[in-house]
């Protein structure tokens, strides 16, 4: 079963705008990660945030984590056409190394 949900399910924005997607999860976690997937192919790791961290940056990516609300958000700034993809959050729990994925957000960047 899926651990959580991404919101929105689909998002279309103009190139250059910022894209924000949210992830909610159900149980206590050790880490939360965000992945990108192009056209049903393999997953590309974007960023990992640990349960004791609240915010993390990597290039144009900004991730926040609120463990009290069991939620995370991924912000992509200055979007590009190449950012068009599906984005998934994935969590793992202490002593349980499997990744539990959300349902994904399909992001479309309009040139």
């Amino acid at each position, binding site marked *: *079963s*899926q651990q959580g949900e991404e919101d929105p399910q689909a998002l279309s924005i103009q190139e250059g705008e910022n894209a924000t997607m949210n992830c909610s999860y159900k149980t206590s976690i050790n880490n939360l990660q965000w*992945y990108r997937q192009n056209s*049903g*192919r*393999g*997953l*590309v*790791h974007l960023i*990992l945030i640990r349960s004791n961290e609240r915010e993390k940056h990597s290039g144009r990516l900004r991730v926040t984590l609120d463990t009290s609300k069991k939620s995370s958000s991924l912000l992509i700034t200055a979007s590009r056409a190449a950012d068009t993809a599906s984005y*998934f959050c*994935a969590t793992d729990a202490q002593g*349980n*190394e*499997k*990744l*539990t*994925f*959300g*349902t*994904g957000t399909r992001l479309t960047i309009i040139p």
Partner: protein
Amino acid sequence: DAGVTQSPTHLIKTRGQQVTLRCSPKSGHDTVSWYQQALGQGPQFIFQYYEEEERQRGNFPDRFSGHQFPNYSSELNVNALLLGDSALYLCASSLGAGGFPFFGPGTRLTVL
């Protein structure tokens, strides 16, 4: 340095048949995990192999089985295929069970 590789890329089978998918881990990795991703869904954990043994298993029936070889490569076997087994099967390797996972490109299985 080759990343995670999977074969075949695509596969078409009919209901009731059996299939074997293969995964070679990233160089230096010793742990392999398998995930099933149905169309429009997120990946779901099938099982993980470490030291040639199944360490952890998700909510999948016994029709799904696996194997890890001494060189750390792995196979996923699915027996008595159902239409619902149609999916992208992803392999991820890591160094140790809790190590950072690297994903392969996946095998697209279609069951007719």
